């Protein structure tokens, strides 16, 4: 965009507060987890060094494979729906005026609800007897029951996530769209570009930076989804909605296996890191 920025290593001083504050709350817990992951915790003051033992066990665990598989499918579905839908909505939001304000406020509402409340709302909302969604579906003759049918449960969790998070993608995309100068649209009209070409060659490239962030946020957050399905389905029926976090919690809290749980956490962390890294580099400006 502009000329190259001057090189100034003292700029690190400006970044220092961020590094200290983030490192304090991130590195210390990370180190603790690394420490746990190579020990067998027998009691508050009793631990035995076991090396890579937990990692070997974790990587062979079929339940983990199942959870990881469900997680990947779920996250892929989340991204495949929320990103295009969010962009579509952003294109439909009025450009200015009270309609734009109203739409933005209404659209943002799901984002402002604490996550456990989101789960609770949907728990009732989707119930066949007393919930609006479940009731309407049942009246329409759909055999729908999210606490009994695994598919229904899975779809409900997905729809809930779409409801909860698509507005974030829409808000970010909308912001990027508003920042495109008018002459780009005017030039495209003069050039005889179709609506699709305007989207493909002007809007999409200008949204790339923002979409990268939206994709990364949705990728990592959906990969760590926990509170909402926990409240809604508790991971069931069976293991239909037991995603990685749910499984991890069962392992850490339910079975008091801190060592394996810590090893699992790190493997989990590395998977997210790898996915985000690949995506980040894929989306990054080629320059």
């Amino acid at each position, binding site marked *: 965009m502009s000329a190259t920025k001057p090189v100034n290593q003292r700029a690190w001083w400006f970044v220092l507060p961020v590094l200290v504050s983030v490192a304090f709350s991130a590195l210390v817990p990370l180190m603790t987890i690394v420490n746990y992951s190579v020990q067998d915790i027998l009691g508050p003051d009793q631990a035995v060094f076991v090396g890579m033992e937990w990692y070997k066990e974790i990587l062979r665990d079929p339940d983990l494979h199942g959870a990881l598989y469900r997680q990947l499918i779920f996250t892929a579905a989340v991204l495949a729906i929320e990103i295009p839908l969010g962009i579509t909505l952003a294109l439909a939001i009025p450009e200015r005026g009270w309609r734009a304000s109203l739409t933005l406020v209404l659209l943002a509402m799901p984002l402002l609800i604490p996550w456990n409340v989101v789960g609770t709302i949907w728990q009732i909302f989707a119930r066949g007897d007393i919930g609006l969604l479940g009731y309407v579906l049942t009246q329409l003759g759909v055999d729908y029951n999210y606490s009994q049918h695994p598919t229904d449960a899975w779809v409900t969790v997905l729809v809930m996530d779409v409801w909860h998070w698509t507005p974030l993608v829409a808000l970010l995309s909308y912001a990027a769209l508003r920042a495109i*100068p008018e*002459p*780009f649209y*005017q*030039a495209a*009209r*003069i*050039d*005889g*570009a*179709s609506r699709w*070409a305007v989207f493909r*060659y*002007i809007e999409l*490239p*200008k949204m790339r930076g923002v979409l990268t962030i939206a994709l990364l946020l949705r990728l990592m957050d959906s990969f760590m989804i926990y509170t909402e399905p926990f409240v809604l389905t508790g991971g069931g029926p069976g293991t239909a909605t037991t995603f990685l976090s749910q499984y991890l919690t069962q392992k850490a809290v339910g079975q008091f296996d801190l060592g394996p749980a810590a090893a699992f956490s790190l493997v989990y962390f590395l998977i997210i890191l790898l996915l985000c890294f690949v995506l980040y580099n894929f989306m990054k400006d*080629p*320059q």
Partner: protein
Amino acid sequence: MARIDLQDLGHRYPGGGDSWALRPMTMTWNDGGAYALLGPSGCGKTTLLNIISGLIAPTRGKVSFDGRDVTALPPEARNIAQVFQFPVVYDTMTVFDNLAFPLRNRGWDQARLRQRVEEVAEILELQADLGRRARSLSADQKQKISLGRGLVRPDVAAVLFDEPLTVIDPHLKWLLRRKLKQIHQQLKLSLLYVTHDQTEALTFADHVVVMSQGEIVQIGTPEQLFETPAHRFVGHFIGSPGMNFLACEWSAGAATIAGVRVETSSSQSPPAGAALSIGVRPEYLELASTAGPNTIPARIAAVRDQGIQKMVQLEVGSTLAWAKLRNATAALPSDTTFARLPPARCALYADERRVP
């Protein structure tokens, strides 16, 4: 290519109240002409351009291309090209694809398209960059691409430029302007060039259209604008410094300044009650040391030596006027002196307008 007629064309922006962004006007742009639309920012020149291209629908009036009414047509149906102030390029495309874009949208076949794009690239000296991504180029390269997209369609009614050289380096600006002039001669396109820079307008165009406050105040060749400004605004805006206007009275069928009768090139009488002044360019105002016809008392207030010429500031009555002296090697008469207004070089202005 086409003749463009504007008939009783006017525009008000919504929320702008009763004020016209563009006052109703009627005029014709001839086929193949190179026009400059000159005026300060906010004078309505971009509005006029956008109405011609169809980006803005006018509040009233009609636009026609070669007699065909296009007022209701959108820009893509008007067969017109426009280049904007800031470079508009399609970032993800190559330079070639950028230039080809307007042609592809109109269904040109590959071979013809390639030939035409290469032609335009050659004119703009972009051949070496055709395979590069547009985003990796500098601002003036990008603006060249915008120019190229404007020029690539050979069948356009006109190419409209909206201050296209704002972001370009001064020396490149000069080159590109000359390039545009060449292109105009080569391709015989009708060009409309909006600018607020008089040098740019005067060097580029055959006809300069001067606008002020939503109104076209004069259309003419650069020479006409300089020699016979139809409006005080044109006098001020063209030339550096602008025209001198000396307040005068009307008595016994002639203009007088401080009781001295002044002959001008105006042959008609001014309307009664108008505020009168005599306009004379600094280039034509002469210094004199003795009284005579068309010679009025003046006093030297300041002298600025610019090497090849001297700028002399004169106090004529209560107004200040500039005189530009080319051959001022001789010492200036220091004490009381006179200023002479050559009759053929000055004109009478009633209110804002020149009296014919």
